[in-house]
């Protein structure tokens, strides 16, 4: 039971934010938007972290700017556009589907397709391979050995 609980607890996604600066929102909807935005925007300094996780100084300032823009009533789209106009698409953790990111989006499916084709060809060639001819004597011997084993167990 304890093991079961432990495994459940380990499976729960842990929302740990390294960011410790506290921002106050009067409006819970704005707070939710802020949380979404800082998770979607990339920290340019530590490139594999989002703004929520990063403690880099630039990330702190970018969070602050995001906070102010949310408080001022800017929409999510406006804030993301503002960042993209300055830092490029790279600032978005979820890359947009466009010509230069197309391989990123369809690449895994292409590779999966190639894998499937190889798998099918492989399985088919195996299935169609003729069963080897086994001499009668060998079959009899195999039968005997199998039966012998049965007698031992009985």
């Amino acid at each position, binding site marked *: 039971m304890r093991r079961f609980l432990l495994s459940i607890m380990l499976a729960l996604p842990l929302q740990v934010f390294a960011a410790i600066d506290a921002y106050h929102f009067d409006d819970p909807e704005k707070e939710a938007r802020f949380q979404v935005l800082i998770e979607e925007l990339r920290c*340019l*300094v530590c*490139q594999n972290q989002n703004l929520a996780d990063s403690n880099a*100084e*630039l990330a702190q*300032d*970018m969070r*602050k*700017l995001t906070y102010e823009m949310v408080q001022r009533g800017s929409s999510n789209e406006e804030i993301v556009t503002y960042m*993209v*106009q*300055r*830092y*490029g698409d*790279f600032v978005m953790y979820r890359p947009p589907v466009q010509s230069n990111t197309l391989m990123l989006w369809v690449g895994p499916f292409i590779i999966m397709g190639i894998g499937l084709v190889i798998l099918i060809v492989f399985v088919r060639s195996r299935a169609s391979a003729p069963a080897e001819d086994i001499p009668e004597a060998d079959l009899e011997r195999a039968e005997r050995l199998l039966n012998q084993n049965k007698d031992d167990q009985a």
Partner: protein
Amino acid sequence: MKARYLIPLGIFLVIVAFLGVGLQLNPREVPSVLIDKKAPEFSLPDLFDPTKTVDSSSMKGKVWLLNVWGTWCPECWREHDFLIYLSKYEGVAIVGIDWRDDLDEARAMLANKGNPFVAVGVDPESRAVMDWGVYGAPETFLIDKQGVIRWKHTGSITPDLWRETLKPLMAKLEEG
């Protein structure tokens, strides 16, 4: 039959090729989207006199460099002597943005090592820095007479870079 044994080798070579190319790429080199765009305006407190401001509008009609630096940035120290050379002997107008810095240390650095800047604005909260899409220091922008960003460099300006890229580009913009 023997060709089968070449398959793993082939896969290996493909992986090596991909990793090889990957190693050549610099993930820090984020392409700037601001090239050929209007330079963002800024008005920042002057490093030497906080009652005054340093405004980007004062550079209107000039070809100039914007250099983002800080005393906390080792590469900026390395770059500093060359910036002094540029301002002193090549007549390049450089405006500095002192980013998230200890102002006393910044003033001391310029007093001790020399000041290559026409003016230095301070940006403790990355206001202008974010407006210019800067994410590291040093970073240098080249702005033309019309106030358009023509070139950007992440990292220090080296003599090679100056000779091969920046100098010809600035000469062309001065004419135009």
